[in-house]
């Protein structure tokens, strides 16, 4: 009996030795996969929540802690640190489409309500383009840039906030949005959904760590 038990014990040890690497790999893989999925989930929730607040006039542009940034810090803390040297960055970009109605609005010379659409004054150079009307970021901007273009740093004001100051500016000289094809351009001739001149609020969040591209990225458009 004793010899037979000892024999069985040896077999079990061999089985265990063989199975451990498999189970460990499976366990770690599941853990890795689960963590990445949860972070991907949370980063999208963060983008959505921040965009929901921003589109309702909450201002996250101030530098340093305090104010609205307390909210930002609180809802991103499970992902990383949103500081200039931290592990995360959040981009706030407000866009608009410069259509004929926008150009007409900046051309009082030709009459505000009966404009000559082909002869705007000043010239409506951004006609037919999506432009950035406001942009700012919080966190470590070296980690990732906005996917929709970056306003010139020189235009950032003291509150870390690039914001064009008038329709004339965004219709003529504002930074064009790059690679924005998520929304169709309004035709302004027939039925449109998104209307020319209406704001589009985009929040992008990126945090380093586990993920297919070395980090997790999420965005929301309101």
């Amino acid at each position: 009996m004793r010899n037979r038990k000892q024999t069985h014990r040896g077999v079990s040890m061999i089985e265990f030795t063989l199975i451990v690497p498999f189970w460990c790999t499976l366990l770690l893989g599941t853990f890795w996969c689960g963590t990445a999925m949860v972070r991907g989930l949370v980063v999208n929730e963060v983008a959505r929540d921040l965009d929901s607040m921003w589109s309702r006039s909450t201002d996250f542009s101030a530098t340093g802690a305090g104010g609205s940034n307390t909210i930002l810090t609180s809802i991103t803390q499970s992902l990383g640190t949103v500081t200039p040297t931290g592990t995360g960055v959040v981009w706030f970009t407000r866009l608009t489409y410069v259509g004929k109605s926008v150009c007409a609005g900046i051309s009082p010379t030709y009459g505000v309500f009966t404009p000559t659409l082909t002869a705007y004054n000043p010239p409506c150079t951004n006609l037919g383009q999506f432009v950035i009307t406001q942009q700012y970021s919080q966190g470590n901007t070296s980690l990732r840039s906005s996917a929709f273009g970056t306003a010139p740093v020189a235009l950032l004001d003291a509150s870390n906030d690039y914001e064009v100051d008038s329709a004339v500016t965004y219709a003529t000289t504002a930074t064009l949005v790059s690679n924005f094809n998520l929304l169709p351009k309004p035709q302004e001739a027939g039925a449109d959904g998104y209307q020319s001149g209406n704001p589009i609020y985009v929040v992008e969040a990126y945090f380093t760590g586990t993920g297919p591209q070395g980090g997790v990225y999420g965005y929301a458009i309101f």
Partner: protein
Amino acid sequence: MLFTMMLPALLLPVIGAAIDFTAMYIVKEKLQAAVDGAAIAAAQSLSAGTSFAPQQAAAQLCGQEFIAANIPTGSGPGGGGYWGAYTLQDSVVATQVPASKVTTVTISATVYLPMLFMRMLGENAATVGAYGQASRRSVVLVLVIDRSGSMGAELGAVQAGAAKFVNAFQGGTDMLGLVLISGSAFVAYPPHDWGKNPGAGAFNAAGPTGPDVDFNSSTVSPNMLDTLGNMTSGSNTGTAEGLMLAYKELQTANQPGAMNIIVLWTDGAPNGITADFNAGVLGTATNSLRFSGAAPTATNLSGCTNTNDGTTGQYPNVAANSILGWMAQWGGYAYNSNATQGVRERAQSSTAGMSVPLWTTLSAPGASGSDEVTLSHTSGPGNGCTWTDGSAINTVVNIPAMDYYGDATQGVNAPVPGTLGNQFTTSDYKQSNIWNTTTANCQKGAGGTGGVPLQLSGTFAGNASTSNTPSSNACQIGLASWNATDMAGRQIHADTVLSPIIYTMGYAGSVSGSGGVDVVLLSRLANVTGTALNPQTGLVYNTVYNNSITPGLYLQIQQVGDVSTAFDQLLSEILRLSQ
């Protein structure tokens, strides 16, 4: 051995199911974010068109566009969608409940998500859904624009900014109106003369309507946008009358369930009041007008009325002998410029075929061709009076205690409906710029050279002649105008049924500083908290802030280029509150 062999068969499906369910949850969260964003954007697009049908169509299309923008989906499995999601199906429905003044956008969306492990159990795909809703409360809004002569280079920007602002509202649902401020204010859209009975004049054949839903309709000419575009600058600044006319318009619309809003644009301090200058007790020294002559007598004007307003008007203060008109400190700020040039005809009260388009483009009172005339006993609206001086300054011996609308010009109004506490004091006018600014002479006596500070009560020390030399009288008119405007804000805020919200926009006209704008007054009107100090006067912005009243917003606009952004910001604030 058997256990070891069976363990993978038991655990692998469990782990696989966990991964599939997590993926479903991730996609559901992303779809929910898409629906939330789409609901907000769709509610914003309700401004398209002038009736509900095109607005409904725009909201539906916009909602669908924003869902697609937020969550990429393929047309089938392996189509490159978010976590493989495919076949997005959505429903965007905008509905109106007229009784509650609310338009609601309801969105539901579903996608299919391919399963990685559950397919081993026969489940190739799962359906993931999300639901969202955004509501937009109807707005009843009166835009009050100061078109006084000081409105110069910024006028075009104001017209463009205001037009964009107006176009963002929901034609056919939101109700908008326009009041323009000159020396006397008037209801420019929908045009109506509050000084006449319904059917008695050219502007009110159908009676007062208040703001209407046709403000941007091409079937109405001129509509509100046309009138804004035609507006030119000229005349003085009767801010109190402008606010009260806006309030009367809101009262006429009478939409307690909607957001009732007054937006005031101005580039300077009030300097005019519209009042009944013959409202005192006949034959007593309380009257504002006396028989003329170098030495005014105590005899008032009996048997006299400017009949176009008179007893058939709709104002509560009008009596049988009323002389309705306006006077202003002349030529700019009250403290350092000329005094009044008499009592003038109130806007729209003329019988000479005056029209809103003409008032909208009036250049200056007294100018050639102007109908903003000085009241006279010999002809026109003042006909019938035994009033002998057309210029009238030497006959105005008291500033009327109240303006035409019941706003106290001196001190504090009698209790008004609602509970506001007792924060307003009889000396609040001393918080005005014209009292505090160092260049002002209003608290230093006549000429700014010292002496007894002015008191905003008692006898108005009118000039002995009609000369336009600077005098302390100008201060008294300016301070009375400030006080009446402050009281107008108090009266409006006391309405607990409509609960109007006042937004104020002050144009400074320079990179820094507040220019001619009285920051304290505009902060008080908007009921915004004011713990900061006004750099111009060193005073706390608002000592009468009341946290039981919905605060508005005070926007200070520095330069022409900032006008459009200010209207955008205001729009964002109003739409945020209405959603």
